């Protein structure tokens, strides 16, 4: 509308930017459900790390061959010795082909899966912000007779021209398959979007009044970048990072599915799922449980991400009010 609340300052006077976003976000039922689900998953992951590695109560490595492929909620057979009894005296999620408790493995995997998602996105955002920032802020300077901006953007183009998934496959196949390499590879192959985005944002921010004013005051450029520009460019990055985490978790599971993912002893939801595939007809829970878990976590991240996007988008927000 032309009239009415065309001046955004009018609405925002009483609230902090965060509070404002939260106000909108809170009303988004789907996004809130996602947030709650995420919180539960994070608790699960921390508990999983605690209980399966530091203070081993639930041992995902215990092999109980006679109890292989037990359906969920079934009890252990009598031949299982006391030292190998499952955590609650029965198999909550059933057992896999080696008689390991799927519940224990899922719990262990939750931390690994979540870490892969977060760390790899951290890496990609880091690279993206760095390169995009340099291109956007120092782009006019020259290096070897070519503008830095051109260098970086050509490099980004090169990176974009590799079919991402294929590249990940190749690189993962080449590197020793440690969990860190998977994180790095996913991170290193997905920074291009962020870089382009940050660059564009910086270019426009550079010309904005408050930055020009700050520059006129003679503030050092690091202060300009970190106090004034980065915080302003970051909120959309945060939104896309949330969704990228979801994508990274999916990528990991796809890699595992093709046999290139995280290798034992780490259990990830991806490789539990990949292993369960062979037993699709014999023990569907081996496939369905991790599959649903991945679906859930990815959905939660996506919902939260989309919720944030809506909440932070002033255009949509105004239209809604």
């Amino acid at each position, binding site marked *: 509308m032309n009239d009415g609340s065309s001046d955004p300052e009018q609405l925002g006077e009483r609230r902090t930017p965060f509070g404002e976003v939260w106000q909108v976000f809170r009303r988004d039922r789907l996004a809130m459900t996602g947030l709650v689900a995420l919180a539960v998953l994070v608790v699960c992951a921390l508990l999983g790390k605690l209980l399966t590695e530091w203070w081993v109560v639930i041992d995902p*490595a*215990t*092999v109980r*061959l*006679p109890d*292989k*492929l037990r359906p969920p909620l079934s009890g252990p057979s009598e031949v299982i010795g006391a030292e190998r009894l499952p955590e609650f005296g029965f198999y909550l999620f059933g057992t896999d*082909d*080696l*008689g390991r408790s799927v519940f224990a493995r899922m719990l262990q995997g939750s931390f690994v899966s979540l870490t892969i998602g977060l760390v790899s996105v951290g890496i990609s955002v880091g690279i993206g912000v760095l390169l995009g920032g340099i291109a956007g802020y120092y782009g006019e300077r020259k290096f070897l007779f070519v503008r830095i901006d051109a260098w970086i953007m050509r490099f980004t183009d090169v990176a974009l021209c590799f079919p991402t998934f294929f590249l990940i496959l190749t690189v993962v*196949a*080449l590197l*020793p*398959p440690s969990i860190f390499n998977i994180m790095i590879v996913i991170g290193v192959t997905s920074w291009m979007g962020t870089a382009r985005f940050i660059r564009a944002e910086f270019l426009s921010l550079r010309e904005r009044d408050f930055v020009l004013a700050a520059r006129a005051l003679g503030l050092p450029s690091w202060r300009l970048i970190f106090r004034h520009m980065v915080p302003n460019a970051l909120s959309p990055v945060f939104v896309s990072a949330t969704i990228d985490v979801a994508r990274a978790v999916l990528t990991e599971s796809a890699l595992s599915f093709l*046999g*290139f993912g995280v*290798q*034992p*002893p780490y259990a990830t939801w991806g490789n539990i799922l990949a*292993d369960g*595939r*062979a*037993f*699709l*007809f*014999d023990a569907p829970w081996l496939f369905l449980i991790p599959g649903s878990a991945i679906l859930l976590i990815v959905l939660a991240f996506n919902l939260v991400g989309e919720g944030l996007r809506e909440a932070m988008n002033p255009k949509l927000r105004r239209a809604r009010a």
Partner: protein
Amino acid sequence: MRTKQILLILPLLLALLLLQSALWVPTYGSQAAQNSGRLQTFIEPRLSDFKLLNPALNSDATTAEMMDRRIYDRLLEADEKLDVVPCLAESWTVTEEAYVAVRPERRLPDGTPVSGESLRAAIDAALRGPLSDLSSKLRAVELAPPGERTRRETALQQMAGGKSESISATVRVRLPERLRLRLDTVEPQLFERLEPVFGQGYFSSIDVKGRIEIDPPAAAPAFESKLDELFAVGEHNPIVTFKLRPGVRFHDGHPFTARDVRFTYQAILDPKNASPRTSSYEAIERIDVPDDLTARVVYKKLNSTSLLDWAMMGMLPEHLLNREALEREMKARQIPAAQREKFSIRDSSFNRSPIGTGRFKFVKHVPDQYTVLERNDDYWGEKPRYQRIISRVIPDRLAQELELHAGSVDRYEAEPHQAARLRTDPNLQVVSRGEGYYMYVAYNLRRPPFDDVRVRRALSMAVNVDDIIDYVLFGEGKRASGPYFSNTPFHDPETPLQPYDPARALALLEEVGYRKNAQGFLEKDGKPFEFTLISNAGNPQRKAVVTIVQEAWRRLGVRCTTQLFEFPVFLEQFVHVRNFDAFVLGWIGADITPDRRQIWHSSQGGNYKLNFTGYASPEADALIDKILLEYDRNEQIALARKLHRRIAEDVPYTFLYEPSRPYALDARIAIDAPELGPGRFLPITTTPSGEIDYFFPRWFTRADPAAVAE
């Protein structure tokens, strides 16, 4: 509004078009009804496509399965009991020519100086005396004038950084005057027996430096250790003479002759072809073709297992692959002149439209999809019942199972857990065949504490292999006790299995000096017992074994970490450069040969060779060498069994199990048995040695599934 209507109607039409197609798809039941040829067609799945359909250029199992007994025939065959029987060769004889260099610098025991004539006289005398048993076998003793022998040889050269490189050179040997002894059988002990006649030390090595010329000279150092092989005073030249089956024709009608045998050999050795089979045939000096149906294979040295190579090698048609044929092909394909020099059999289109003498003719190959073979109605032997074989590429076992249910394949090799389920399906039959494979844990004997046999034994005892067989393999397998497969005569059934006994395992480790520390882990001199167990990714069974073994050892108090690597990485970075503590792997194939030199001889411990563990036992080395010299089958078996037991006792590997591979087949497939009466048939079975495809020519699909097998 038009746009709106298009947007709504188009997707609907698309959906309808796509979904209605389901109505026309033939299902399991309707396939035979719609398509009369279906019963005459055997459809089998493969996990991956084969490479070159040329037996000289490929040695991998998938390709071999397609070629052997189907497109190509071999000179010999292994029968149901793995004995060697005729195939393209109707019969064969093994004879020998032995050469003894004349060493004029020596004197015979009676003092006469050595010359060709004096040696011959000495032999004649001996034949009447201590060597009388040879007189009937010794056809002739002749004098061969001095000459020159040129051979192409290959050796390993150590490079900087632990890498090795293969280096080839022309080796020219100036031969002295030599005595040629023609024998009717191979006499491995000939020189040992002649030694007292010619004088003690007559056959000991002589300085060969002056006689040998290596071109290029730079390669000389690499051959330093091989000099004795290049020329010796006494040289055995075993000769195998094959009488070929008359009237055999290639699929294009061209008759099969001994020249094709020779050509096949030459093709393997031609360095341009980079054949993986070279080493098996390098022992051959030459192949003579006295007539169309006789091939005389002359070997450089004793090699008792060399006959078996002819039971593993399909015969190529010379007229399609010799230089002229290749020239013709290059002309037709307009290969530029610059490329012509490099052009080899490897580049020929023959490899994708092969012609052999086998039961099936190659018809069509769609890469990575399927291959069609048609029955060869001119086949010389028993003709197969099926008119056609279609071999499909289905990269996943689960997918193969689904296709079997859908009726679009007739059989597949099931995973054990699938088989357990499929056995209850009335539409299917499940037959387990021996896979010719065993799984093991290899230890790096070069590294402590694995150099101590007690440690290796303890680790072996901690693993409950029977449980693995029962639960991971669903009973589809048996325990392995040593290096020979249990379906071969070389396997020693008396060799004891390592018992599952964690208590004794612990006792053994305590004997070595390990004690449990506060955390419950084993320690010796303050150092915990810890190491890394590795394997390759992508093999679920191996992954399961790694997990089980790790857990078993952890319960023993051993801190074992595990890692899986992609196969090429696993080999290149760990196994081949001996950078490992222990790994899980399996050995496959080569059931019919008793030769285990590559894997167990101490000379094969270097990087890139196959004695990964660095196993070095003088006793085993001697046995391995002797097996290669022993031409008597029974003696050979006895030696092999000794070797089996020796290696088993030294536990360089923890020998785990030999899995069997369940085959799930359409229940209507049976073995035709007209000898039992008209219309009679037998259910699908394996041979005593565990092979299933052996009876394939007699397999057929019954139109009437109700009939009962005899």
